[in-house]
């Protein structure tokens, strides 16, 4: 999605960035933990 207007204090944009960052971070951490757990016998 492209943004119509930028503003340093654009809280909606900040929230969207943070939500995406948390989602991607969660994916990375779940790969890490899931991968180790899947190798435990």
């Amino acid at each position, binding site marked *: *999605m*492209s*943004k*119509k*207007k*930028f503003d*340093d204090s654009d809280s909606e*944009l900040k929230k*969207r*960035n*943070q939500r*995406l*960052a948390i989602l*991607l*971070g969660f*994916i*990375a*951490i779940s*790969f*890490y933990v899931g*991968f*180790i757990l899947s*190798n435990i*016998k």
Partner: protein
Amino acid sequence: MYLVFSLIMFFIGGSMAMIIRAELFQPGLQFVDPQFYNSMVTVHALVMIFGAVMPAGVGLANWMIPIMIGAPDMALPRMNNMSFWIMPFAFALLLSTLFMDGGGPAGGWTMYPPLVLQTGKAFPFLIFAVHFLGISSIMGAINIIATVFNMRAPGMTLMRMPLFVWTWVITAFLLIASLPVLAGAVTMLLTDKYFGTSFFSAAGGGDPVLFQHIFWFFGHPEVYILALPAFGIISQIIPTFARKPLFGYASMVYATASIAILSFFVWAHHMFTVGLPINGELFFMYATMLIAVPTGVKVFNWIATMWKGAMTFEAPMLFALAFVVLFTIGGFSGLMLGITPVDFQYHDTYFVVAHFHYVLLTGAIFALMASAYYWLPKWTGNMYDEKLGKIHFWASAISANVLFFPQHFLGLAGMPRRIPDYSVQFADFNMISSLGGFAYGISQLLFVYIVVKCVLGGKKATGQVWDGARGLEWTLSSPPPYHSFSKPPKVTKALMEY
């Protein structure tokens, strides 16, 4: 900061390469003991991959992506800051091991158990450094994805984005998918060594080959993490100096995505000799051959872009052309290594060393050099010294080939890698290779001089800089303002085309 850090690391890793080439200048043990030699081989690889090439790519992404997509800055500046400052800390950990009792890690950058578990005090430092570097890279990747997905200017549709941005988005997803696997593997190494687990210990019911599978499941995508941004850089430079639009833009995007996806299905071609089932070897051989198709599409498109173009040969274009030729040589030797029965002869020989240095030095690093010359006037507001740039190019291109081309012959003749001494039959080619290495090392000092000279002054650059350049970054002044597009630009199709 990323770029300065990566340049420092390039010289630290390079000085280790000089030690390696000095030792290999003639047969016998001359300067260093074998343990230290192996540490140099290991740490050179880690420093160059994680300290020089990856941070340089992230640095270019940080600087160029916002101004290429019409954003004021990166999406998550605090995370960016953390991502950067982790790196000097991680490398301080890694490099400090060279001064410890027992020396630095010496089991190769691949950290295969059980050999790596024999590492002395350096072991936990190595493991934590790798973890930190992984965290840093993942944070950088998240920032790039958030910036591209949320901060594009109106009209900057995905299929209008410059190829450099596309290659970086795809690389960022590769990083997020592959680095947790490496982190998991090295965590398991740590628990095997200190907490009594047996993930990779045959004595406890584990399997050392499992580590190789896991490592290369990360390791092969890692090759493309280093190479894809280089493809993006070349795709920016060639149209500029051919004064033609990039041939087959959409096919370039799909080829990049195909390479990224395929890179997760070829890992075992690094381990044909461990005794895989024949069907497995055939699968990985054919999958490896398949990667040549999208890569071939890219090389074809770059050549087609130049076809009948009004080309000029400034330093960035020279490095880009050398990239196309030399990366293709590295690609072809990679194809040879991907053929299972052939790999049984070449495995762990200098042929492999020649192959990956063609891909990473004359590939990734030449692309980074090309990008530095291409964007230096934009960054500094000053033109670099073109004559010196060309001298730097020819010195680098000739010496890099003198350095690595003979290594193909050494490998074919059976010289193993990662050894400080060798049979006298390999003496001549090693001497030539070392001379090339010293010449390459010295010629890079010229690059530092050119960069410093350009930063300090020189002929003023216009906003456009290169008359054939297209894209948003060239609509800004040189150097661009601190916050580039605080009012989003209107991106039209015409702005991006010729």
